[in-house]
């Protein structure tokens, strides 16, 4: 089934992307070509085929979950656009009683 502009706009909205009109036209063509390509899977009988995984070892590859000291803690706070001494500078998103939101980058939020 081909997707139209409204379908693609809804998907883009879900992905938190806003598209220009030109981008939307391109995205509709792209996604429909893409779906046509992956429609090939329907030629195959896949019901007894397991999803792929790299199962070469029975050893759990996860390391132990133990706290460790990050040697450069101050570097995490040192990003140029967000550096406020020992604080992260992030946009403040405030929702008032009626649901209106306000975003401002001026005040700093404490870590």
């Amino acid at each position, binding site marked *: 089934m081909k997707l139209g502009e409204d379908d693609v706009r809804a998907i883009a909205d879900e992905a*938190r*992307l806003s598209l220009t009109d030109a981008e939307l036209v391109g995205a509709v063509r792209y996604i429909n070509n893409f779906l046509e390509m992956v429609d090939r899977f329907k030629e195959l009988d896949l019901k007894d085929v397991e999803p*792929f995984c790299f199962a*070469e070892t029975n050893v759990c590859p996860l*390391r132990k979950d133990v706290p460790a000291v990050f040697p450069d803690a101050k570097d995490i706070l040192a990003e140029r656009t967000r550096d406020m001494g020992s604080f992260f500078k992030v946009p403040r998103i405030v929702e008032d009683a009626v649901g209106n939101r306000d*975003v401002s980058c001026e005040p700093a939020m404490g870590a």
Partner: protein
Amino acid sequence: MEFHALGVHEIAAGVRAKKFTALDVFNECLDRTIACESKLSALITVTADSGRAQAREVDAGIARGEEMGLLAGVPVILKDNMCTHGIRTTAGSRILGYWSPPYDATVWRLLSSEGAVLLGKANMDEFAMGNTTGTSAFGPTANPWDLSRVPGGSSGGSAASVAAAYTPLALGSDTGGSIRQPASYCGIYGLKPTYGLVSRYGLIAYGSSLDQIGPFTRDLEDMALAMQILAHHDLKDSTSVAKGNIDFSLPMGDKNGNVNLKGKRIALVKDFQDFTLDPPIADAMRRVLRVMEEGGAEISEVSLPTVARYAVACYYAIAASEAHTNLARYDGVRYGLMVNTATSLKDMFEQVRSQGFGSEVKSRIIAGTCLTEPVRSEEYYVAATRVRTLIAAEFGKAFEKVDAILQPVTPSLPEKIGESDEDAMKGYESDLYTLPVNMAGLPGLSFCTGYARDSGPVPGFPSEPTSGLPVGLQLVGPRWSDKNLLDIAFELQKVLGAPQIARGGI
């Protein structure tokens, strides 16, 4: 002295033996870089000051009589999707345009602990999505053999840097061919290692089940040396396989002897034979096959019908789905681009992502979002993961009978910059020769066979240098056979010659 023309092992040996200093090597390579960079644009960031400081440290260590590492004073370049502590790392995207990571990727930690010196961060397609380096937010890179053409991608900056001899070693990442295709377009060696052999910790993720870091070099011994250091189990990457350490230090044999491929079982893929190849690539296939036969290899055919028909669709379904998940983290809150004009939280996310991502990345995010929506997930994403099982099994069966497959890297030579097709899907089809390797987690080595002229390839290029475009081919092996691919290429190099430094007007 032209240090930039030396190999990794030559520089490290010379620095350790105090024949020259790491600082002299770095400065000369930096001069070479600066001289070429206005034409190539291979780098996003040049790390002149920190590189000089690292080189001085190496020299100071040597002066103190300390034991120096395998890469003492060797300048290297990293693709700009590998985190470097305090050094801007952009992934070729506006959304990370000024991001400085607070930690090093494991691969850089391993190289620098052996004395490597960072010269710069290489240009790349945005978030590694592309095969021209043309989707970079920092503009395209040119091919050092022909400045009007693309160097390939997504690791095009890394490949162009090594081909143009900025450094003898650069790292790239390969999700669907992003090391092997630019290596082929730039006429050098590029290895996509077995998935799990090299740590991905600190690599900015695109398709996590496909991404793999690997080296570019102009010399096979240099590549073996790099892999000896990079093939290292890493607890910080749960996909790094503990049994994966392979001994790359074994000598490769006599450089000047006859080609010896006795006992090597090499196959062509029957199902690829009907696809059209540019004449220089078809000629190179015939020529290399003849060299293999004369060297005593057993040549046969394998059949990969599922790969030939479904791998491209399967790859893009999985890559887009993983990309959409991996790129969800770029929301303007924690790092990267942020905006001051949003009216709501959702508006802020949309503004940051819409201004920060380029159109190829947006397209793939939308495709991934679409394929993983609950109404379509079973039909497309889950189906793709099942098709992937069939593809891996097909390779597994083929490698019961053969040690390696010889195949093209691409069906054509590099196109002109800006010439890419309106229909992105056609570009995707040309990836058929590279991306199945990532689907099955296999190693693939791209190597240069010679140089094309309009009338076809020039045999024996070391004696007949041309400014024609390099023609690459690829060896693919079963998982953990990386060293065997280098050994086969080493034998071929006796006839094909080693890759040369590019001279396309730089």
